[in-house]
């Protein structure tokens, strides 16, 4: 049996939030369970979606896999390597695109990508060719390559973030709400690129989103997460069968989510 691209066993992550009390200089700590015994196994080449509202634990899950957080319980393995004990090996296999497209804002896309290429030890001659190819493929115009990031639109910045994530040819690509805030055209470009990455480069993708349509369109399997727990895990079609047809129509993922959690996706409050 082949080693899973990503395997989580009973992963738990707790944060402590400081809360000021009415008493002067007195503070108490509130425990927030971000992930509560989450287990999953993602096969090589799979696009696995984690669907949930803000504060449900999606970003915590991605941060744990990307070695930015340490789990309080359970194990996480990337292609059989433990993310805590074999951190450097795991770091070479992964890359992450986050919702906030964090860049040196005065740098151009090419300068930001050069920094990424050097950090990952890529030969610069090849990396420079590859940067241009990926940026063009994502629909970025060449005159934007040398403009400061702060002068680019949110959509263009996010495309540079996707290019940076893919530049290092990760075998596991972590996409944390990569299309949030993008216009429909940019969203389609990014989604098409994700599909292409999987088809042409045998990459595994862990995608978190609260966009039902995106999850339905891209993912082979979807886990629905709510308050740090997976409450369902299946293919998009499988999830829909858990809920009966409405007015002679198959249910949407939105209706599935509502049925499973008891509340609509958009109205959940942020706890993270």
């Amino acid at each position, binding site marked *: 049996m082949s080693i899973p691209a990503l395997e989580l066993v009973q992963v738990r992550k707790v*944060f*402590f939030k400081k809360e000021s009390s009415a008493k002067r200089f007195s503070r108490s700590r509130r425990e927030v369970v971000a992930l509560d015994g989450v287990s999953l196994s993602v096969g090589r080449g799979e696009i696995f979606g984690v669907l949930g509202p803000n504060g449900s634990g999606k970003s915590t899950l991605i*941060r744990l896999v*990307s*070695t*930015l*957080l*340490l789990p*309080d319980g359970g194990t996480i393995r990337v292609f059989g390597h433990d993310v805590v004990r074999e951190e*450097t090996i795991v*770091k*070479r296999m*992964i*890359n*992450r695109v*986050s919702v*906030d497209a*964090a*860049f*040196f*804002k*005065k*740098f151009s896309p090419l*300068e930001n990508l*050069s*920094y*990424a290429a*050097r*950090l*990952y*030890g*890529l030969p*610069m001659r090849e990396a420079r060719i590859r940067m241009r190819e990926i940026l063009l493929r994502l629909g970025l115009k060449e005159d934007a390559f040398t403009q*400061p990031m702060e002068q680019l639109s949110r959509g263009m910045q996010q495309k540079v973030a996707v290019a940076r994530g893919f530049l290092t040819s990760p075998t596991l690509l972590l996409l944390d709400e990569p299309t949030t805030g993008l216009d429909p055209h940019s969203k389609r470009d990014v989604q098409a690129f994700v599909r292409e990455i999987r088809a042409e480069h045998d990459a595994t993708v862990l995608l978190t989103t609260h966009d039902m349509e995106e999850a339905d369109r891209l993912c082979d399997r979807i886990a629905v997460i709510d308050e740090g727990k997976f409450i369902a895990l299946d293919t998009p079609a499988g999830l829909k069968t858990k809920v009966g047809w409405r007015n002679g129509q198959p249910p949407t993922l939105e209706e599935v989510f509502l049925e499973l959690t008891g509340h609509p996706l958009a109205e959940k409050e942020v706890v993270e």
Partner: protein
Amino acid sequence: MNWMIRELRGAYAFVERNINLTKRYWGWEIVWLISSLVNSLAVTYIGAGMERISGETLDTQYIITYLLVGTLIWSYLSVIFYSISEMIAWERWEGTIEYTFMAPVSRLTHLVGTTLFAIGYGILRTLVILLIVAAFFRLDLSGANIGGAVLLLLAGSVSFVGLGILAAVLPLLYPERGAQMTNTAAAILLLISGVYYPVATLPGWLQAIASVSPATYVIEGMRGCLLRGESTGSLLPTVFTLIGAGIGVTAVGLVIFRKVERYAKRTGRLKRSG
């Protein structure tokens, strides 16, 4: 071999990145340079005015050079200290901290890259200040041991790298006030290290603290080289002590940084802020 090439590329990533940041924020650089220059001039003019202040005949030339050496060496050492101690605060401010910490480079490589840039930048910046300040005062360095001074300065840099790592822990532990705490640490070093006055001027308990500050030995040694022309041979014990202490502090700094990094990962403090 592959590992070495990868780490060298990683170290150069930080050098190139910091060069690019310096170019992009050139306006800030000019403001900061003017501030340092004016500070150096203001301190040195205190020396120039000492005869008028005291009403006595003094060796003004000696006092001017004494103060100028202190202010220039402090300018250089503080660049090293801030470049390293702010490597975390800067990443937080730009919002890139998670990306950099997720990359497969060791913290030692991160540090080597940051240090190489800091030393090059510090030397260049201090030379610019020296050239401008020299136009305001008549400096007589004819009997100075310049080679010994450079040797001492490089040895002192190693110590300040270690102190910089220790200070870099603060923004990692305290995302909001860590950078300000770093400023306070630098201010304490300035007070105790004899930058503008002999350490013997301080109360006994501060002199005891001054004895563990590497800047105390760098500045005193530099004055010995530049004002009294002390030989390189006589400086060697200080040079070796500074290098030994620097390696020790750097090693301890790296161990502490690693532990604090794990604490930050356990408590979720690597998240960007600002």
